[in-house]
């Protein structure tokens, strides 16, 4: 047995083991924590499969922010009614087990059958690698997201915005000055935050800049920004506010505007902006998306319409 197969088997076992823990864990809190661990293991698997863009995105978004959002929602339930928040019976039946096993068999059959198929000569992936040098981009995933499948990315940004607006509409709690954070008065904490937040911003800008040629891009950068926002909220440097400032609203819609311009301008000018404005256009659209993603995810975590400075 070679080392590669051993690593694959080990990673697979870790993933399956963590998934079992998520589903079967007695306490909900434990399940959420195991889900975060599952997301991180998933990021390792992406890296192993050579999909580094996905590894970055899954570590930041799939594991980090989903976990943070779930824990925040769990905390909200506990505050409402501690007894009811954690009760979660489950109805284990033989039928559910049978359905699950059959579904797993179906997925395995589909996967193994699809793998046995020969790839077609005109496949989209091959075309991407052929056309990539003409765009001047080095990262094929960024090329697909922004140059060829820009409409997908536009709709994705719209979904993100819609999900945030929907969450605001659904939240009927009104706005109460919830103390989302304990007031930490640790001397080191402020220093630590003061060091980490600028560093996170720097990493976000780096991911954005490098995203044209290397793994990275607007989504990874935006989620790093959002992680900085979550940290600021957790430490009380930022606080949820009942109203949002004009700047924040601008930040929320900036991404849709940026990618919208990037994919709709060619319809007016007849030429793709990549050929017309060069990589500057991509970077501009991506930085607008990064700001939007950061703002939206931070506000989703805050569970509030706006933010205010908590240091004053």
């Amino acid at each position: 047995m070679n080392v590669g197969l051993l690593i694959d088997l080990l990673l697979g076992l870790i993933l399956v083991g963590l998934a079992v823990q998520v589903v079967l864990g007695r306490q909900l809190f434990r399940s959420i924590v195991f889900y975060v661990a599952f997301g991180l293991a998933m990021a390792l698997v992406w890296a192993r499969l050579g999909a580094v863009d996905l590894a970055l995105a899954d570590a930041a978004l799939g594991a980090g922010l989903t976990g943070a959002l779930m824990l925040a929602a769990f905390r909200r339930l506990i505050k409402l009614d501690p007894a009811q928040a954690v009760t979660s019976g489950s109805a284990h039946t033989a039928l559910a087990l049978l359905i699950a096993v059959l579904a797993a068999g179906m997925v395995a059959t589909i996967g193994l059958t699809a793998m046995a198929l020969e790839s077609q000569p005109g496949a989209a992936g091959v075309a991407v690698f052929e056309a990539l040098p003409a765009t001047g981009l080095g990262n094929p995933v960024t090329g697909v997201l922004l140059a060829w499948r820009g409409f997908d990315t536009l709709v994705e940004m719209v979904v993100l915005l819609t999900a945030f607006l929907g969450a605001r509409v659904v939240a009927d709690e009104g706005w109460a000055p919830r103390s989302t954070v304990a007031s930490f008065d640790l001397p080191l904490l402020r220093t630590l935050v003061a060091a980490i937040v600028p560093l996170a911003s720097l990493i976000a800008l780096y991911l954005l800049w490098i995203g044209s040629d290397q793994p990275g891009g607007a989504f990874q950068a935006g989620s790093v920004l959002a992680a900085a926002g979550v940290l600021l909220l957790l430490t009380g440097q930022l606080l949820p506010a009942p109203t949002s400032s004009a700047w924040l609203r601008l930040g929320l819609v900036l991404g849709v505007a940026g990618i919208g311009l990037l994919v709709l301008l060619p319809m007016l000018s007849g030429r793709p902006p990549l050929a017309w404005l060069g990589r500057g256009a991509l970077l501009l659209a991506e930085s607008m998306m990064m700001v939007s993603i950061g703002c939206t995810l931070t506000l989703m975590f805050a569970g509030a319409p706006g933010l205010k400075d908590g240091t004053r």
Partner: protein
Amino acid sequence: MNPAVYVLVAAAIFGIGLHGLLVARHVMRKLLALNLMLSALFLLLIVVPASIDGRPDPVPQALVLTGIVIAVSTTAFALALMVRLFRRQGHASIHPDLDPTLIGQRRATKRKEGDR
């Protein structure tokens, strides 16, 4: 890298997730299970296409990247719905035995059957 291993892993995670979705009553557990199923499908989408000259196919990667962002957005929305549900019915579980409106309907249909 051995793709067949990951196909089987994806199938196992999908099954585990579906089982969790079916048996769980708490909405957040259902959401966790759904997210597991999503991860399994993402894994399948990446593993199945053959690599092109040793590089992974970028098209499914872009698809999955989009999928990850959409999954986070919909999860956030679903969590907001869950908090609303909790405020309204006092717990965050979905199950016929626990939903008073459904129980009422069931009794009504039983009574109708009894009348016949």
